[in-house]
C-alpha cells in the first residue's frame, strides 16, 4: 500500500514544477530580439520600401490606393461600372466626404510607411556592422519618409509630423497634432537633403533602391510645388548634369515594359513583381486588375471622356497607344477585340492577361522626362521660354513621336511661344505624358487649375475649391478632434 501512495504522489509531482508561464514565440520575432545585426537593419529597410507596394489584405499604396486620389478623382479618369465600392465612385464624382474609406486607407498606408522608416532610423544606429552601410540604410529610410510626407502634404496640407517609432499603447503618446504645411515641407527637405548623400548607383542585385539622383529629383519636385524656381532649377540641373547617366528611352513603350525595369529613364520606381513564391498581393494593381477581359463590361477604371483625353493626341504620338488600348488581340481566339471605350494600358501585361493583377511592371514615381519638363517649367516661370527650356520640352516631344531625341525636328518641335503659351504647352505635354502616373492631380492643384479643368468633365461637376485638399479621415478626428482640425469644405 505504501508503494501505491508513493507512486501516486510521485506522479502528482511529475508535471507540477516543470513549466513556466512565460513562453517565447517561435514563429515571429519580437522587437526585444530584433535589431542586433546588419542583416536586421537591411530587412527593416526592405520593409520600409515594401510599404509602397504591399499591404496584405488591402490594395497597396502606389499599386492602387494613391491612384484613386491622384488620378481617378482628377479629370481624365473615372470609376467604371465594375467599381463596386461606393466610396470609389464618390471619389470619382468628387462627392466624397471625411468618411471616405479610400482617403482613410491612403492616410493609414502613408503613416504605416513613415512608422517603419522611423523604426529603422531609430534602431539602426544600435546594430553592429559597417557604419557606411548603416548610414546608407538610414538615408534610404529618410528618402522614403520624405517621399511619403511629400505625398501627404500635397493631399492634406499640414499633417502630423511623427519622427520616432511608437513604443507604448498609451493613447496620449500615440496622438500627434497637425503641423503647418511649411513645417512639413521643412522636414521633407531635411530628409531628402540627407538622402542626397546616398550612392549614385547600386549593383544590379540592388537595383531599385533610392539613389542620390532620386533624392535630388524628388527635391526638384518639392521645390516646384513650392514655386521655388531657383532651387527647382538647381536640383533638376544636378539630376541632369550630375553624371548619373539618366536619359530618355528611345521608345515610350519601354518605360512600361517589364524587361526594361530600372532602365536609364527610371529615376525611382516602386518595384512590382508578380506572385513569386507565394508572395501574396505584391502585384501592381492598376488598370490591369480591372481588366475585365474581352467583354463589353466596363472595367472599374475608365477614361472619363474620350474626346477630351484620348482624341487629343496628334497623329503619330506614340503615347496614346501606350497609355490606352482601343483594340487588343485576344490570345484565346486569335482575333482583334475592339473595346466600346479605350481602356488603360500602361500597366497591362499583354503576356499575362490571365492574372492581370499580378504584373511585373514597375510604377514610375519619378522618371527623367518629368525632370526635363520640371526644369523647362521652372525656367519658363523664372525667365520665360529660353532655348534651354525649348530643348527640354522638345526632347520629350521628339521621343513621343519616335524621333531622334537630341536632333531638332521641325515636325514636332515647339517654337515661338511666349511665357504663357509655353506654360500652356508644358501643361498639355504633362497631361499626355503622365497618364496613370500619379501626377495629374498634383499638377492641377499646383497650377491652380483643378476646379476649371475637372469641371470640364460633366460627371465631375461637383468639384469645388475644397478639393484642393482631401479631408482628414473622420476616424482620425474622432480620436483627436482638437489636434486635427478639418480642412475647409468638409
Amino acid at each position: 500500500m505504501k508503494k501505491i501512495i508513493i507512486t501516486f504522489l510521485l506522479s502528482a509531482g511529475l508535471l507540477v514544477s516543470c513549466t513556466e508561464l512565460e513562453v517565447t514565440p517561435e514563429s515571429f520575432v519580437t522587437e526585444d530580439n530584433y535589431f542586433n545585426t546588419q542583416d536586421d537593419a537591411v530587412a527593416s529597410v526592405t520593409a520600409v520600401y515594401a510599404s509602397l507596394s504591399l499591404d496584405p489584405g488591402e490594395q497597396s499604396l502606389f499599386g492602387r490606393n494613391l491612384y484613386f486620389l491622384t488620378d481617378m478623382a482628377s479629370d481624365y479618369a473615372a470609376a467604371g461600372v465594375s467599381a463596386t465600392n461606393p466610396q470609389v465612385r464618390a471619389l470619382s464624382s468628387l462627392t466624397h466626404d471625411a468618411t471616405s474609406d479610400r482617403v482613410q486607407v491612403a492616410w493609414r498606408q502613408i503613416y504605416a510607411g513613415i512608422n517603419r522608416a522611423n523604426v529603422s532610423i531609430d534602431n539602426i544606429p544600435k546594430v553592429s556592422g559597417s557604419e557606411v552601410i548603416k548610414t546608407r540604410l538610414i538615408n534610404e529610410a529618410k528618402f522614403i519618409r520624405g517621399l511619403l510626407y511629400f505625398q501627404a502634404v500635397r493631399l492634406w496640407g499640414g499633417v502630423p509630423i511623427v519622427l520616432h517609432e511608437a513604443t507604448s499603447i498609451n493613447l496620449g503618446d500615440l496622438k500627434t497634432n497637425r503641423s503647418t504645411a511649411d513645417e512639413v515641407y521643412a522636414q521633407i527637405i531635411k530628409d531628402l537633403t540627407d538622402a542626397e548623400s546616398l550612392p549614385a548607383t547600386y549593383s544590379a542585385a540592388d537595383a531599385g533602391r533610392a539613389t542620390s539622383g532620386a533624392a535630388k529629383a524628388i527635391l526638384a519636385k518639392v521645390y516646384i510645388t513650392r514655386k521655388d524656381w531657383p532651387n527647382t532649377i538647381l536640383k533638376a540641373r544636378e539630376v541632369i548634369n550630375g553624371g548619373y547617366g539618366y536619359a530618355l528611352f528611345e521608345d515610350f513603350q519601354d518605360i512600361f515594359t517589364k524587361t526594361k525595369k530600372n532602365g536609364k529613364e527610371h529615376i525611382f520606381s516602386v518595384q512590382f513583381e508578380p506572385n513569386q513564391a507565394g508572395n501574396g498581393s505584391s502585384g501592381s494593381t492598376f488598370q490591369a486588375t480591372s481588366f475585365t477581359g474581352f467583354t463589353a463590361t466596363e472595367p472599374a477604371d475608365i477614361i472619363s471622356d474620350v474626346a477630351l483625353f484620348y482624341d487629343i493626341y496628334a497623329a503619330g504620338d506614340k503615347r496614346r497607344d501606350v497609355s490606352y488600348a482601343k483594340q487588343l488581340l485576344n490570345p484565346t481566339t486569335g482575333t482583334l477585340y475592339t473595346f466600346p471605350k479605350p481602356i488603360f494600358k500602361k500597366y497591362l501585361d499583354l503576356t499575362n492577361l490571365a492574372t492581370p493583377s499580378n504584373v511585373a511592371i514597375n510604377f514610375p514615381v519619378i522618371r527623367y522626362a518629368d525632370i526635363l519638363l520640371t526644369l523647362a517649367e521652372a525656367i519658363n516661370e523664372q525667365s520665360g521660354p529660353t532655348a534651354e527650356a525649348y530643348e527640354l520640352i522638345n526632347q520629350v516631344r521628339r521621343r513621343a513621336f519616335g524621333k531622334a531625341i537630341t536632333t531638332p525636328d521641325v515636325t514636332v518641335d515647339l517654337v515661338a511661344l511666349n511665357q504663357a503659351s509655353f506654360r500652356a504647352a508644358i501643361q498639355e505635354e504633362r497631361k499626355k505624358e503622365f497618364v496613370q502616373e500619379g501626377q495629374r492631380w498634383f499638377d492641377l492643384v499646383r497650377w491652380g487649375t483643378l476646379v476649371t479643368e475637372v469641371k470640364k468633365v460633366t460627371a465631375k461637376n461637383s468639384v469645388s475649391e475644397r478639393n484642393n485638399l482631401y479631408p482628414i479621415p473622420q476616424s482620425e478626428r474622432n480620436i483627436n478632434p482638437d489636434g486635427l482640425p478639418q480642412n475647409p469644405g468638409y
Partner: protein
Amino acid sequence: MKKISNIYILLFLLLLTTGIQAQNTTPLIQSKLDGTVVDDITNQPIIGASVTIKGTTHGVITDAEGKFYFQTGQKFPYTLIVSYIGYKKTEFIVEKNPVIINLREERQELDELVVVGYGTQKRKDITGSVASVPKANLSQVTSSADNLLRGAVAGVVVTQSSGRPGASSSVRIRGGNSITAGNEPLYVVDGILIYNDNANSSAGVTYAGASVNVLSTINPADIESIEVLKDASATAIYGSRGANGVVIITTKKGTKGQDNISYQGYFGFQNISKKLKLMNASEWASLRNDVQASIGQAPSFTDAQIEAFKTSGNYDWQSAAFRTAAPVQSHNLSFSGGDERSRYSVSAGYFDQEGIVLGSDFKRISLRANYERNYSQNFKFGVNANYTYSLANGVGTAGSGRTPNPLVAAVLTAPVVPIKNEDGSYNVTNNPYATSVNGYVPNPINDLENTTNETNLNRILTSLFGEYKITKKLTAKVAVSGDVLNTKQNYYAPSNTTTGAGTKGLASVGDRLVGSVLNENTVNYNTNFGESHKFSALGGYTLQYTKGEVVNAGANTFVNDANTYNALQDGVAVKPYSEAYESVLKSWLARVNYSYKGKYNFTLSGRADGSSRFGAESLWGYFPSAGFSWNITDEEFANNIKGVTEAKLRITAGTTGNQEIGNYLSLASMGSVNYSFGGTLYTGIAPTRLANPDLKWEKTTQYNVGLDLSLLDRKINFVFDVYYKKTNDLLISVPVPLSSGYATVLQNIGGVENKGFEVGLTTENLKTENFAWNSNIVFSLNRNKVTEIGNGVNEFFPVVPNGSLLQQQPVIVKVGLPLGTFWGYKTNGIFQTQEEVNTQPKINSLANTKVGDRRYVDTNGDGVITALDKGNLGTSQPKFVGSFSNTVSYGDFDLNFSFQGSYGAKIFNALNQQLEISTLGTNAAATLNDRWTPTNPSNEIPRATSSPLGIVSERYVEDASFLRLKLITLGYTLPKSVSKKLGTKSVKVYVSAENLITWTKYTGYDPEVSSYEQNNLYPGIDFGSYPNSKTFISGLNVTF
C-alpha cells in the same frame, strides 16, 4: 455474430446460476415469492436489479426478464429492498405472491447524483444552475457531439454553420459574452478540458473552405450523459475558461454485474429540403436582353430564341450540384460490463455520410476503451481512451467576392450554358458569359466533382486516474490526460477547374498537430458535524500545457493532373508556411460546500489561473463565486402545501473569465513583408503590433436566481432561472491614431451585457399500464447588448472576409445594440417617373439614377441618400428559442417527436442579394421576372441594369424565425419472448425522420445558418452555405 451471442448467452447463464447459488442460504420455513422488477415509466423489465429482504442478508438478482424468485422463511408482510444502478433504491412491502415492483429512474429526482466540475453532487444540494441533456436527445443522428445540445437545454443555442457532413456549430450558453475572443463553452470530456476551436481542424490550406467540427472526433454513440453548467457558482471552478459555460460529457462506462454486447446501427438517406427559385433559360435570355438595352447594346437573343429556350437548351445548374438520396449509415458495437472490482466498456463505431452536395462526405472510425478497477479497498484507478479517425471531403471556396464557393457559382451560372458536353464530359470550354482563363471557363459542377478537398483528423483523447482514500473522509485523486489532434489537409484543383485554371493545377497540403497534456491533482474532504451539518471541501492544483505546430506547402503549374497533391515537387512551389505556438495554464482551485439539515446549502468555489496568454503584468487571474440554495419543502411550514412535492430556491453570484484570446498577443510582434530589388524578392521585417503587458482575460460577472419546482408527485417538474451577466475587459482592437503607424491596439476595454430567463418543464402527461406520454419543454430568452467599445468609439464595422461583403459592411458593432446587428438602408419602392428621379433623394455614390431604380428612405431628411441614412435592420440573435419534445410509449411501441423553434432572429441573405443583382453573365432569382419595365411598373423589383453594386437593405435582411419538426422516431421493441428466442436480451427497430417539416418565411435554403461559422462579429450571414437536408433513417439496436 450468432456464434458470439450463443457463447455469450452460455456465459451469461453460467454467471446467473453461480449468482443464484451464491445466494442460497437455508431458510427456516419454506415460503415462495415470484416477482418482476420493471421501470415504472416504460414498463420494461429491469435486468440485474438486486432484491434483498430487509433485515436479512438474503438477496437475489433479477434475470433477463426482470424476474426474481425467493424461497424464504419470512412471513407476509415483509419488506424488500430493490436497487439498480440509475434507479432510486426502493423499499417495498410484500403482502402476497406474486408481485410487480416498479422502479423509478433516478434522473427525475433531487437525490440524483449530478456531474459537476471536479466531482458529483446530489441535485438536492446543488446551488448552481446545472442542466442535463435528456436521454432522448442523445440518440439523434448527427456526426458531432455538440449537435446533441440543440434544443435540449434551456439557455443553450446551437447554430450549425451549414448542413455539410461534419460541419461546425457555434454553441452559445446564455448569449455571447465576447466580441472578438472565443465564445464557445468549455468542454470537459471524461475530465479532459477541451476548448472547441475549429481552427484546429484547419492547416491553412488555400481554398479549403469551411472547417470541420473538432467535436466530431467524439462519437455521439459513446456518450452516456451531458451536463451543462450555466451560472458562475457552477463554472467558477473552471476559472478563466468558465465564462462561456461548461459542457461536461461523460462517456459510457461499464456497470457491475452484467456483461452486454450491444449493436446500434442505422441506415438512411438525405435529400435537399428546399431549392432556390431561379430563372430558367428563357427568362434569363430575356433578362440579358434588358440588361444589354440598359447599357445601349443590341440584344443577345431574338424573340424566337427566347421562345425556343422554353423547350430546349435549359440547364438546371442548381439541381446538378445536389445528390438525391445521399446515403448515411452508422454502426456501433460495444462490450460492457463489470464485476465487484472492475468495470469496462469497449466500443467501436463507424459512421459514413455522403453529403447532399456533390463531392462532399464524412467518414469516421472511432474506438474507445473505458476501464476502472478497485485495486484495493482504498485505491481505485482507471483509464478512458479514445481514438478517432475521420475524413471529410468538403466544398471549397472559389475565392471571389461574388461567388464564395462552387455551390454559389453553380446557382449563378447562366442557365443557357450546357453542364456537360455531348460525350458526357463536363463543359469547361464553352461559356460565352464567363471569362476564359488559359482556355477554361468555370464549371462549378466540375469543380465540386473533381476538386480534392480533404480534411483528415486523427485524435487521441486519453485520461488516466488514480483515486486513493486516505481516510474515510479524505480522498486524493490524480489524473493525467493527453489530447492529441492531428489534421492533415489535402487540396488539389485540376487545371480545368475554376481555382486551378489560372495556375495550371493548384495543389496544397497542410498539417497541424496540437497536443495538450493536462495534470489534475485534487483532494476531497467530506464530513458531518452531528446530524445537521454536512461539510465538504475540494482543493486542487492543475497544469495544462499545449503545443501546436502547423506546416503547409503548395505548388502549381503541373504538367498534367495525374499526381495531384502527392507530388508537389512536380510543380512550381509556392512559398511554404510553418508556425508553432505553445501555452501554459496553471491553476489552483477550491470548493467548499456546507449544508444545514439539507435545507440550506452554501457553496463557495473559485480558481486562480496563471496563463501564458496574459501579459507580463497580469499573469494571474482570480475567479470566485458563491451560491446558496434553500429546499423550501423541507421546512415544516411547507409540508402542507398541496400538490407541491419539492421546491428549491437558488441564488448565486460569481466571476469567471475567458482566456480564449489567442497566443502571444501581449507581445510586440514583427512580421515579414516582401519587396524586390533587381527583380528578386527580399524579406523585410516590420513591426505589426505594439506590446501590451497588461493584456489579460475577459471577465464575466454573473448573477443567477433559480427555482426548481416539482408538483403533483413529480408529474410536473419545473426549472426556472433568471440571470444577468456583465462582461468587462473585453479584448478589442481599439482604434488609435493612424498617424502612429498602427491602426489598432489590443486592449481589455470592451463591455457586453447578457440578461435573460430560462424555463425547463418536464411533465408526465399520461400514464397507464400500457401507455405513457412524457413531455419536455425548453424555453429561453436572452438579450444581448454591447456596452463599451473603448477610446470614445461608439461603433465599428467588422471586416467581413469577402470582397463584396467587405465593402457593403452589413454588420455593425454599436454600443447599446446586440452583437450581430445588421446595418443598412430601408427601401422605399422604385422610382416610377423622371420627376421622382429629379426631386427625390438618390444614393450619392450612384451617378445616373434612372427611372426603375430602387429608392431608399432618406432617414435624416438631408435630400440625399448617404451612409448616414443607414440604420438598425435587426440582429441575428433570436428574441427567444424553444423546443417541445415528447416521448410516447404504447406497449412495445415508442414514439419520439420534437419541435424546435426560434423567433425574431434575422439573416442577411447575401446569396439572394447576389441573385437579385442583374448582370450580363450570371443567373438571377426568379423574382427578377417581375422587374420594373415601362409596361410593368413594379414597386418592388428594380429595372435590369449591369451594375454589380450590392447594397445592404431591409430587403435582404430576412426574418429567420422558424418552427421545425426536428425529429420524429417510431420504435418497436420485440417482446421478451421473441427476443429471447433470437438469442438476444433486447431488440429494437425504429424509423426516424429529421427536419421533416420546417415552417419559415426565410427565402434561403435554411434559416439555421452562419456562413462565417463560430465568428461572433458577423454571425447570421448566409452566403451560399451548404444547405440542410431532410434525413430518413431506419435503425436497429440489439443487446446480447
